[in-house]
């Protein structure tokens, strides 16, 4: 009996992690991606490996996902992670007050934290605003966005997954009875067109999942929400610095190599394929960032970029939407079989999103195999290029 | 792990490079002397046959010329080898090139020494 074939559209975080999980569970997998690995939102993340602290007050489901996955990723892919930790820093009375519900949230979500006096915090991070009132240390981290995805993709490849990069999906193939049977593709690197057939097509296209679903006449309630991030050219901190407050603009500073990245904002957008930088937000990053790190004003910006998060739930303003992910079997809502969409979520939860998606694919195809991605260490990300398809 | 890159024998590349550096330095010193002695001490620059023969009657001059010869020839040929290596020769042709260059070098040095001694004996 030949193995069931699954096409994954998109080689962002969710796509490569899903490809890895599917390949590990014995499926034949083809990933179709119109750009390189992490072409869209995934590549342009600030690289914060969340401990969940950011969500533990308002969105505990996401927070628990984050802390669980944080530990798993540290274990299976240490090659791309700066595991130094993070801090939540209170600068004013409002922050201190928020700290009470925050610690309660951390307790509820099983996020370990430790209270630091201003002196202790400044010893660890001398560039912090010296007027801070208190800080909590948490197990945040930083990851390299491209290499995180490459490690998943490399491992998927070693288990037989095929990656078709620079290949657009131009149409979904339907059998006329409401079942998706494959995709029409346009390989732009060779300028060739063709068709691929599959038992299930998984759309892992994040902010673009609404557009792909539309090709099948299906619907995904997706709210693409861009945010601006600015990379500054000095590594002012060793740990991730979060403002101890309700998630808002410019309240995260993520160290990475010799930089710090300050993020992020949130606005609306019409065309997903090119999102212009909102200039006011760039200024805002500097203002908000330098509240946490006053020396930020003495650094130069090195890169300014925009990423479009896929938030689930249409018509609700960005920040208040839950940051969790959702897997849609379009048979249930739209009567379209052979087609699954995974969207929402965060980079930190990529593995879990893949697990749930693969579970759904298994269930659709009547296959029963255990997920092992939480235990299997990933190959060197460099193997993605070394391995031939 | 990788068979396409073979381990070096006994540090051949390192010693060749060091030799190029040492001979290079020696050449800078000897060539300065060579140039000055050969062309600027005698009046009128270039020497005629008789001048050269007389000049070579000094054993120190013969020694200096021979030292110059045995430094400049290896330096030049190691340099030529590294340029040829940059042209991506196959393993086999690299070996052939090594032999040819060694042969050319030996010939040049033997010929040069013979020449210096012959000229010295003409005096």
């Amino acid at each position, binding site marked *: 009996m030949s193995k069931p074939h699954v096409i994954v559209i998109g080689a962002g975080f969710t796509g490569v992690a899903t490809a890895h999980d599917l390949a590990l569970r014995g499926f034949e997998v083809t990933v179709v991606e119109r750009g390189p690995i992490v072409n869209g939102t995934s590549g342009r993340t600030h690289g914060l490996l969340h401990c969940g602290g950011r969500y533990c007050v308002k969105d505990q489901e996401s927070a628990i996902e984050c802390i669980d996955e944080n530990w798993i990723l540290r274990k299976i892919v240490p090659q791309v992670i700066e595991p130094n930790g993070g801090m939540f820093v209170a600068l004013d009375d409002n922050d201190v007050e928020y700290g009470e519900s925050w610690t309660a949230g951390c307790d509820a979500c099983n996020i370990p934290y430790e209270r630091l006096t201003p002196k202790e915090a400044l010893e660890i991070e001398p560039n912090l605003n010296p007027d801070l009132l208190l800080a909590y240390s948490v197990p945040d981290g930083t990851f390299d966005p491209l290499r995180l995805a490459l490690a998943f993709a490399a491992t998927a490849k070693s288990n037989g997954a095929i990656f078709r990069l620079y290949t657009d999906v131009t149409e979904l193939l339907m059998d006329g009875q409401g079942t998706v049977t494959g995709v029409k593709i346009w390989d732009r690197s060779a300028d060739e067109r063709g068709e691929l057939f599959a038992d299930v097509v998984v759309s892992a296209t994040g902010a673009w999942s609404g557009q792909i679903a539309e090709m099948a006449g299906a619907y995904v309630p997706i709210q693409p929400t861009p945010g601006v991030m600015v990379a500054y050219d000095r590594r002012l901190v060793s740990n991730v610095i979060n403002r101890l407050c309700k998630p808002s603009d410019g309240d995260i500073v993520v160290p990475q190599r010799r930089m710090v990245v300050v993020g992020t904002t949130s606005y609306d957008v019409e065309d997903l394929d090119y999102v212009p930088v909102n200039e006011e937000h760039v200024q805002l990053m500097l203002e908000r960032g330098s509240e946490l790190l006053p020396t930020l004003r003495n650094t130069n910006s090195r890169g300014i970029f925009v990423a479009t998060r896929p938030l689930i739930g249409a018509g609700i303003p960005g920040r208040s939407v839950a940051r969790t992910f959702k897997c849609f079997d379009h048979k249930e809502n739209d009567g379209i079989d052979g087609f699954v969409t995974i969207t929402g979520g965060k980079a930190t939860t990529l593995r879990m999103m893949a697990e749930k998606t693969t579970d759904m694919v298994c269930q659709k195809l009547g296959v029963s195999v255990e997920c092992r991605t939480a235990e299997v260490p990933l190959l060197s990300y460099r193997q993605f290029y070394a391995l*031939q398809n | 792990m990788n068979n396409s890159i073979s381990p070096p024998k006994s540090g051949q590349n390192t010693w060749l490079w060091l030799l190029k550096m040492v001979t290079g330095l020696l050449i800078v010193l000897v060539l300065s002397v060579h*140039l000055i002695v050969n062309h600027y001490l005698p009046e009128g620059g270039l020497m005629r046959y008789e001048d050269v023969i007389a000049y070579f009657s000094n054993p120190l001059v013969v020694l200096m010329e021979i030292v110059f010869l045995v430094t400049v020839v290896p330096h030049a040929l190691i340099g030529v080898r590294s340029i040829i290596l940059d042209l991506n020769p196959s393993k086999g042709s690299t070996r052939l090139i090594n032999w040819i260059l060694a042969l050319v070098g030996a010939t040049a040095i033997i010929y040069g020494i013979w020449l210096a001694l012959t000229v010295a004996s*003409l005096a």
Partner: protein
Amino acid sequence: MSERENKPNTSNWFMWFDVRHRDIGDWAFVLHRLTALGLVLYLGMHLIVLGTLTLGPDAFNSFIDLAHNPLFIFGELLVVAAALYHGLNGLRVGLTSFGVAIPYQKQLWYVVMAIAVIGSIIFAISMFTA
């Protein structure tokens, strides 16, 4: 390592000498290589010409007469300039190869060029006025 069918888009050897868009270190390298090739050529000719010494006075002196031609002297000047540059830049390469003055390799090259140019001018004057 698997050999890739797709060939790297490397250039031909003459692209070594294409210094467009490149920086000082590359110019230094290109000049070093050009002068090296010139000097090797000269070294061979030099040895052969000196061989005429063994053929007696006439053979050698007729060559020396030829060598008083200004074009020939110009050729000799090129050799001197090449040797000056190659020697001085060789010292620069040697120094930086042993970890000395790597951050100042560009400044060192200016010094090399200055000495080489001034030296060549001095040689030119003395050769053409001799």
